[in-house]
């Protein structure tokens, strides 16, 4: 456990020093800020544009950080030859992998907190009250956090299997496809439905973790959303378990 915490803290420090992470976070903050300006372009119901664009900007940046930082964590260590000295110490491969994931998760939550804080400030300043930063807001941000954790787990899985570039490409493809699962579900009728069914179960159902509509209309997310959060946790767990299985057998030479 001590090793797990140590590796995760090292991961947090390492990621926070990376230019990619800093640049993406800066870009995320700028995008959330830009949603305030976009809100001024509409005709009535300014909050609708502001909340929808702001939440999507946060999601875009959070997913990009999870993809590009996560996919480089394990294989990056292998390429730089820093993995072998670590594993020479009394640290198991699974402990190392889970420590890396925990560190990534902390960074993702940190990023989300910074962007959500700014977003909350903008919403409150725009409406002149704290009403938009209510339960719907907190739940939408929480669901987005689960989404980042799922994408992070997938990135770690691919990072344990292949090279950083391929891992980033595969994770990005899965993250995009995961947003389309709602549409894939609509293809369950008619001949050859086993393909969409298979995809539905194989891909992470990220679209069920989107709470844009609930935030726009200030309604609590449906009960299904919490089921989706549990599902997200289970999916992340499965991806990490698979990553551990693969990584345990991987030839590190």
């Amino acid at each position, binding site marked *: 456990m001590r090793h797990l915490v140590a590796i995760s803290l090292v991961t947090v420090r390492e990621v926070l020093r990376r230019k990619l992470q800093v640049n993406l976070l800066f870009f995320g903050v700028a995008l959330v800020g830009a949603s305030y300006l976009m809100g001024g372009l*509409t*005709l009535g*119901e300014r909050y609708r544009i502001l909340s*929808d664009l702001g939440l999507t900007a946060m999601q875009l940046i959070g997913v990009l950080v999870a993809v590009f930082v996560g996919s480089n964590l394990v294989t990056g260590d292998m390429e730089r030859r820093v993995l072998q000295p670590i594993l020479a110490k009394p640290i198991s491969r699974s402990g190392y992998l889970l420590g890396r994931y925990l560190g990534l998760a902390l960074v993702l939550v940190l990023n989300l907190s910074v962007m959500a804080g700014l977003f909350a400030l903008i919403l409150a300043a725009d409406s002149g009250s704290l009403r938009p930063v209510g339960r719907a807001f907190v739940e939408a941000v929480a669901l987005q956090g689960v989404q980042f954790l799922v994408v992070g787990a997938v990135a770690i899985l691919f990072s344990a299997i292949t090279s950083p570039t391929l891992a980033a490409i595969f994770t990005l493809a899965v993250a995009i496809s995961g947003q389309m699962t709602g549409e894939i579900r609509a293809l369950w009728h008619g001949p050859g439905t086993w393909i969409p069914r298979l995809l539905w179960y194989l891909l992470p159902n990220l679209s069920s973790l989107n709470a844009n509509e609930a935030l726009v*209309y200030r309604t609590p997310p449906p009960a299904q959303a919490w089921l989706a959060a549990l599902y997200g946790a289970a999916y992340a767990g499965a991806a990490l378990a698979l990553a551990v299985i693969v990584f345990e057998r991987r030839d590190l030479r």
Partner: protein
Amino acid sequence: MRTFRIIQIATFAGFALATWLLASRLDTGRLRPYDVGIVPKASTLRWLSLGHPTLAANLLWLKAVQYIGEPRANERGWEKLYPLADVVTDLDPRHGYAYQVAGTLLSTFGHVPESNAILEKGTRALPDRYILPYLRAFNAFYYDDDWTTAGRFAEISARSPGAPPHVRQNVLAYYVKGQRADAAIAFLEQSLAEAKDPETRKAVEGQLKQALLERDAVRVDEAVEKWRTRYVIGPLFLEQLVGEKLLPAIPPDPHGGELYVDEEGRVRSTANPYRFSKPEPLWARIPRPRSEKEGKAP
């Protein structure tokens, strides 16, 4: 070395000048009024939005706002507004303001069937937004001269939560003008049964009395008209209409007064002389939608 520096600066200046010249050429495209080339299908956008249909709807709505806000919109035409609003509301059926704005503008610029379609779609999707059936009712009487349909939509509007009390008065007026006072009476009787506070009760009772008066007064008006055809001048007393068998009996005044015939030949109540005016003919009411292509009226 110095020559090389001069060549570098000259190259930069050449490219900068070319960029500026080309940019000013590119700008000519903006002299045309803002238009939307293709309105994508909602199903396509749903796929492309990657699980964010409300975002796709909002981005398309921003495009629609630019389309609406173009100062030379009449020169360009309004053909794309309905498809835009239709796709926006397909992607986000709860986008109430899109139905409202598109419905209002489409009818104003002569696209009344499209305005009706988007307002009816909104009425079905958002039963708690009273303004949508209210605007549909306006279209029905103002553009289509269809008072009964106006009454039907005003009734839907009046039953919506949060509808202001004046909408009930519109229901009464539209039904009466559409010769459907019976529908107004049925609606007001139900409203009276559902009224929770004494003020609303009092207001509905007054409207119900007016509806009853309008229903009976139409029959008396017709009898007076027949009398005039027969004797040129109007009757001195309403009892004369019964004597001539033009009416079976003089109906009671729901307001508690007595009925009389005014100088225009319309029956009124001594307790409350108000009567709804007869609807103006359509041609007297609607200015034709103007477009710059047609030129201005002299």
